[in-house]
């Protein structure tokens, strides 16, 4: 009987853990570092927040291209997906870049890469928080 109880309880516990892990990943995507903060991984939380935040500030300050949903081609769509990876910082980037993008010089081009990298890095940290919440070694 004990085995049956245990066997029945484990899938339920796993499903709950998966749900919590999913919400932690979403939180980590929306606010960089929040996923790790919820798991009390403070060092990783602070460094994720600072790294992604600084990349966004520098990228927008260098007048990199913040892609919007109304892109013309596949590269614009991919750029939008990468930028969207920064979560709420995407909105901050659009606000910071009041004068619009200027990729006619190298600085603007670098800025575009900084912004895209910030997004991809944040997605990576959110995935890391998800795996840690699932109990995988992190």
């Amino acid at each position: 009987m004990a085995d049956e109880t245990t066997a029945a309880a484990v899938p339920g516990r796993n499903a709950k853990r998966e749900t919590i892990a999913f919400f932690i990943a979403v939180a980590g995507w929306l606010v960089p570092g929040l996923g790790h903060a919820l798991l009390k991984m403070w060092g990783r939380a602070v460094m994720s927040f600072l790294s992604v935040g600084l990349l966004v500030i520098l990228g927008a300050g260098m007048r990199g291209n913040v892609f919007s949903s109304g892109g013309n081609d596949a590269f614009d769509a991919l750029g939008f997906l990468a930028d969207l990876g920064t979560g709420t910082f995407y909105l901050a980037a659009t606000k910071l870049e009041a004068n619009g993008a200027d990729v006619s010089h190298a600085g603007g081009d670098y800025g575009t890469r900084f912004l895209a990298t910030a997004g991809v890095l944040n997605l990576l940290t959110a995935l890391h928080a998800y795996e840690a919440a699932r109990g995988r070694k992190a």
Partner: protein
Amino acid sequence: MNAGMGFKLSHLQSMLLFAALISVAFGFLSRRRPMDRVKYILWSLFLFLLIGVGIGWAMYPFSH
């Protein structure tokens, strides 16, 4: 750097900043112990710069 939200960085400054930020983030994500993190960050930063400067020199003949 200019005042306000306009940053004017050289190629080298941009590459250094990029490499440093990514190396620190990777170091904190992939290693747990502080000493391991420092080693990873320094090694990653070194490789970023080595490969960046290496690619720059590899492209140099084509710029003339």
